[in-house]
């Protein structure tokens, strides 16, 4: 069995990470971000989608001192340094929550459900939680 350090794949697959859950109420958002960061080392074609309550993960101004948990929203800003640049947010999900692009901690591409649907359908591997 190869360790991840020895593994240098010849194939490039399209990996999609789907974030549909709010942060802090459950750990899925944080632990999903950990997968995205690791995936960056594998030279694959990585996309990340935020839809439904997952858009709340990107909300500016998170301050977790009062609940004694780690604020992981700054880590999204590190994605760029990992060359993870295909970040998509569903427009309909933002609107249903009264949010706009200006409320988010990072630059993302805001797409309609229909546009997003086409991107999601073109993936080879989908990881959701």
């Amino acid at each position: 069995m190869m360790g991840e350090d020895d593994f240098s794949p010849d194939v490039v697959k399209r990996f999609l990470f789907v974030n549909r859950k709010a942060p802090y109420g459950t750990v899925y958002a944080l632990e999903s971000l950990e997968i995205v960061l690791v995936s960056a080392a594998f030279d694959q074609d990585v996309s990340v989608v935020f839809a439904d309550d997952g858009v709340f993960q990107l909300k500016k101004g998170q301050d977790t001192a009062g609940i004694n948990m780690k604020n992981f929203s700054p880590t999204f800003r590190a994605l760029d340094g990992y060359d993870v640049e295909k970040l998509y947010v569903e427009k309909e999900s933002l609107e249903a929550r009264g949010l706009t692009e200006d409320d988010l901690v990072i630059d993302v591409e805001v797409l309609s459900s229909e546009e997003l649907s086409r991107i999601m359908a073109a993936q080879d591997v989908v990881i959701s939680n």
Partner: protein
Amino acid sequence: MLHTVNKSPLDRNVLDSCLRLAARGSAILLIEDGVYGALAGGQAAPKIGGRMGDFRFYVLGPDLAARGLDDAALVDGVKVVDYGGFVDLAAERKAHQAWL
């Protein structure tokens, strides 16, 4: 009775169940991901706004702040409390029901 709702109303239908089955006069406290229900700009706002005459609504401040909603506009009449306020509500009311 003190009711707590800890789920986002855009993800689950549990706020609806609470509003349907809680007795008039109850206190309803939104905690954890339930705090999203208090947003004036969210789709669920009318659910709470429309029942202001039946219930007293509260939202947990530390959970709002964690989610970057400290300065967000809340549905009119929703009162922000901290964990101490949560304890006070639990003590004042006869029993607690968690809507999970």
